[in-house]
């Protein structure tokens, strides 16, 4: 059933499911090889392997709908073959061979001045004593990053924590060292930092601008809504202080890009208003991510919360669509990324590069699958002193392949989603599948609309007037 967008978010008429429920039903997994979705421009299918999207006629759509409802894999495969859509597999069971590490995040300070209610790092120190990364460790991490790097190879260095700016001298020294190594090797360095913003100075802005940093500020809402989740350790609100520190840096943006990242809990679900406010403040982009796993369970999203979030995300997505159609930039990051990936047909057997080309480094120089697995044995990957533990890395890549995940193997969204954040899945499981599928179903529909009305957005020649 096709639900007009204007209906989503409204209560269902008597006896009918609400439009949002109907969308979630349409997005349910039926068969793993294909997903059928309807739009104002007619029915379309997603051929799951290769993330290939085709418009189909009503006759094909009806046949496919019957096959999907009956879970008749044989019939659906025969139909795909008749349509010429059967191909050699794009993604096989073969795990990724361990690639060289070309992205590292340094837990440059395993301590923090905020006391966020849901922090995966448990107040910044990952459940251990607070500590700072030494200069020696940071430089050794940079050397690992550039080991055997070649000209034009992409290399990314990220500073995380705790709060990385509480160890500013090491952030600066590691950046300069990375810059030198990039010049020596000819590799293409990108730098990023995720900070709570409370300690930023105008000089930091100069430094980030000079080196073209991607700066991410964690902000969970406007004013009190943010303060309720991200107070200082003494309980005082942090929002005013952050905005005071960040505003001048937003005005400095030329090479650097300053973005806002919003962690969504049941207490800050008013997403379109937050998005609008932060875009107006001048953030380069604004992205939302649901809180799915916290050490204490506090702030974790449950099924009902995720349904509300989906409704809010779609409302924000519709605003994105309106702006793009009008030719205006609207940096709603989740939507920008979804449109780019759907357009390319991005398909992947993992959700991210964690434990592959990307790793985290703890303050003491231990390697882990990503910044979230610092001090966590489940994602341990060796150390700077002994190098990447190739055996553990190989086991990780084999075990984390989406073909080894349940219920992912039978889900149409598996190559767009990749199976979900490893850390959240290992800690809590997969509570957000309906939310992810609902969001991707909406994004597929939005892609079809925008490719028709605003083809220039995707680099195609403009539509004829």
């Amino acid at each position, binding site marked *: 059933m096709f639900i007009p967008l204007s209906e989503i978010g409204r209560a269902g008429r008597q006896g009918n499911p609400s439009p949002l429920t109907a969308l979630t039903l349409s997005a349910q997994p039926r068969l793993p090889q294909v997903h059928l979705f309807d739009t104002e421009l007619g029915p379309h299918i997603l051929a799951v392997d290769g993330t*290939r*999207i*085709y418009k*189909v006629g009503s006759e094909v759509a009806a046949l496919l709908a019957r096959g999907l409802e009956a879970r008749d894999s044989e019939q659906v495969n025969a139909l795909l073959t008749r349509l010429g859509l059967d191909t050699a597999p794009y993604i096989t069971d073969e795990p990724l061979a361990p690639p060289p590490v070309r992205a590292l995040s340094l837990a440059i300070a395993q301590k923090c001045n905020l006391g966020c209610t849901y922090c995966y790092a448990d107040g910044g120190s990952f459940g251990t004593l607070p500590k700072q990364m030494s200069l020696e460790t940071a430089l050794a991490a940079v050397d690992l990053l550039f080991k055997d790097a070649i000209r034009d190879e992409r290399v990314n260095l990220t500073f995380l924590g705790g709060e990385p700016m509480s160890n500013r001298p090491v952030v600066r020294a590691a950046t300069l060292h990375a810059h030198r190594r990039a010049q020596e090797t000819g590799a293409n360095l990108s730098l990023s930092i995720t900070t709570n913003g409370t300690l930023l100075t105008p000089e930091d802005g100069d430094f980030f601008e000079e080196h073209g940093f991607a700066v991410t500020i964690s902000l969970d809402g406007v004013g009190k809504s943010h303060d309720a989740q991200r107070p200082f350790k003494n309980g005082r609100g942090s929002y005013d202080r952050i905005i005071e520190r960040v505003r001048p840096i937003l005005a400095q943006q030329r090479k650097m890009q300053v973005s806002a990242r919003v962690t969504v809990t049941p207490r800050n679900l008013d997403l379109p208003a937050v998005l609008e406010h932060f875009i107006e403040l001048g953030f380069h982009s604004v992205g939302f991510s649901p809180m799915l796993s916290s050490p204490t369970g506090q702030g974790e999203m449950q099924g009902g919360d995720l349904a509300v979030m989906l409704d809010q995300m779609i409302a924000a997505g519709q605003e994105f669509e309106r702006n793009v159609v009008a*030719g205006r*930039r609207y940096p709603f990051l989740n939507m920008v990324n979804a449109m780019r990936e759907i357009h390319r047909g991005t398909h992947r057997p993992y959700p991210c590069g964690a434990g592959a080309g990307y790793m985290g480094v703890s303050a003491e120089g231990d390697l882990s699958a990503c910044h979230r697995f610092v001090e966590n044995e489940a994602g341990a990957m060796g150390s700077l002193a002994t190098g990447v533990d190739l055996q553990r890395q190989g086991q990780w890549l084999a075990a984390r392949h989406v073909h080894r995940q349940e219920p992912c193997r039978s889900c149409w969204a598996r190559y767009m989603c990749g199976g979900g954040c490893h850390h959240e899945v290992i800690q809590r499981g997969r509570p957000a599948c309906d939310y992810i599928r609902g969001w991707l179903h909406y994004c597929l529909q939005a892609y079809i609309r925008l490719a028709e009305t605003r083809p220039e957005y995707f680099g*195609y*020649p403009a539509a004829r007037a």
Partner: protein
Amino acid sequence: MEGVDPKNLSAQLAYRGVGNPPSSHPDTCISNAFPGLEMDFRNAWKRIFVGIEIHEASNYVVKVDDDVDDDVRVLANGYLLVSVDGEPVEVSVTGPQVPGGPIMPLPDTAFNDPKMPIERSNALANVIHQKAGKEVRCVFRLAPQPGGALPANEDDRIEVMLRVRPFFATGLDADGNPHKLAVINRDIAEPGQLSESLCSPWQNDYRECGCYYWAASRPDFVNVESRPDGTSTGHNWMQRDRTPTTPKVYIVDDRKDPRLVTYDELFEDWEGKLRFEISGRDAE
């Protein structure tokens, strides 16, 4: 049945028109880029510089446009492209002539020229990426004469500025700025040019090439039988006499060997001489 309309890039790349065989798709076709059964990709480079046309397999200037200046017109008198924007497009090839032999220059047989053209997708990658639509300095040298006579003055080089034709087509992004598409620019080839110089496999190229080139569609060793010691015996597909009673001795390819079919025989009766091979055996 209704067809389907591919919408995103991965669907477009994988798309096969209704009724077309699998071999019509680049990743399953036999073209092998050149000479090709479906298209000859080398032809996409012939018109990369405005005003001249270069040979698909060498750096030889084949012709110049009617309206070019005199300093470009002279390139039609037997010149070879040497470098573009400071990057060489030819390289000296050296190696042993026989296994274990001394390393020496390896000239081509037609011109006795020890320099060979470099594959263009690599040699011109920076130029098409950074200099599309712009003029670049191109250096040419006089080509050796057929048979290997070197030009009177080997150092006679010509430098001209030539405009690079954009290799990729252009779209517009959301702000109306030009944006490179993953599509070959329409101007890069004249109609029909991409499918010039294709193979004629049955008549020519099956005779010309070994099975290593036609792995999917050209058998080599046919009517094979295993022997108790683990070795095998059979016929060369190009062997004229392949009856069930013909002794199974593989005849090593040599176009002068009268036991093997000739080009003329293939032109006249390729289907009779080659026959279909089913499960590795000559079909009746």
